[in-house]
């Protein structure tokens, strides 16, 4: 194949993107739940004038 570099680069990039979309789609939702649980549980009072 004449332009193997660009072909490999593009198809590897596409494959990586597909896999990462699935992983981040699942685990990112869990991260949001954890973040909101942490922020909802914080008792620190806001700074006042």
């Amino acid at each position, binding site marked *: 194949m004449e332009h193997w570099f*660009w*072909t490999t680069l593009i198809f590897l990039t596409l494959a990586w*993107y597909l896999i*990462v979309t699935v992983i981040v789609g699942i*685990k990112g939702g869990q*991260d949001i739940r954890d*973040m909101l649980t942490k*922020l909802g549980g914080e008792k620190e009072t806001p700074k006042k004038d």
Partner: protein
Amino acid sequence: MTNFNWYIDGSIILLYLAGTITAGLWVRKYVRKVDDFLVAGRSVNLYLGIASLSATEFGIATCMANAELGYKYGFAGITPGIALAAAMFIIGWTGFCIKPLREQKVITLPELFENKFGEKVRWASGVVIVLGGLLNMGVFLRQAGDYLAIVCGFDPIYLELIMTAILIGIAIYTILGGMLSVLVTDYIQFVVMSIGLIAVVGLLIFTFGWNEMIDSSERLIGEGAFNPFFNGEYGVDRILLDLFLAFASVLTWQTMISRVLAAKDSTTGQKIYKGTSPFFLVRFSLPALLGIAALHYFGSEGIAVDNEILAMPNLLALVIPVGLIGILVAAMLAADMSTNSSYLIAWSSVIYNDIMRPIHKGLWSDKKGLLWNRILIGFIGIFLLLYGLWYPMKGDLWVYLQVTGTIYLASMSVILIAACYWKKANNWGAIAAIVTGCIIPVGFLILQQVEATQEQMAAIGPYKIGVATYLMTALAMWLGSIAKHYLSK
């Protein structure tokens, strides 16, 4: 001419918009302090960080700019993406600058600079960051308006209305929920954007054929389509600027480092960078591929394209079928909303935290601080509308983004490296770097618009100017610091 159907595709877009804005508004109840508003209480974990950083750094303007590179330079147009991906991986892997930055627990770069160089450098840094950032962001709305008008088949006279509607939608949830809303909506936007982008690229490769697209690039552009060093327009000076810009933006671009600063610790920040680095290849290669597909389609049909930047949206309007075009528009809206919301909060955080520092001295209550941050986001939104309508784009969009970004990237990256690793660095050097890094690109932008100097500026070109800015800024930092060092002895 477009395949966009208002009932089917319009419903998909409406569903997406309703879901995103509801989620963005729902999390506003968790915002109680300025820290929650600006850095989400520093509680961002790896996968959310990757989703947010990826969604932020991919907007309609980026997509159109990179598709234009693909249309004009073929596969060589992906070169800046290779530089960015490599820079982000190396910095994430080594922790160069970002590790000490996160460990200082600052909200912005200028806050770090104050510790080493004093209050004046913090303030001046804030000013150039906001100047460069806002000029850079100023063209986003118009590009988004152009794109949507073509793909959805709007009459261009509604362009301003579309721009205003997009901005108001984004500003509502950003003003109310700050970084928390940005993160949650970024996550939804990452998923929608990725599905749409992968589906469209897959469809175009399947429809046109991979080998046929390569053949068209070779026939219409020549050998330069595959070799950036061979291309007359994409030469060594441009590649050098790509490299400087890649490292500088990964180190100092506020929307990028804000994910490191919002990470729960420096190790997570480094992992977010390493994990997101291949996305910067995606950010260039997939839009460039859309541009190459447009070149193949219009080139094969013998259709002349007047404005190269609009080739990609024109292609999508013609070849993407009903249903998928709705997902595509939702995906691009997702990309644009996440970018704009993050940029709004990034620049407002610098204005509040650094430029307004002499006024509030860090003593205002959280309630007052939150109110001011929200007011600032509103003002930035108004500026974007006015600037987006007024500024006439000249040359490549990507080059405009590079030049405006350089206004602060050159000086901030030099000062950051010096602050972290050079003991002799001082405020003289920092001020000299800020002035030098600002004057050269701003001068170029102005002279490019003045009729009497347009020819000379075109002859020098933006790439040499960009490279010279980085080199001269580093020299100014060194000379200024050494001068103070010897004169004060």
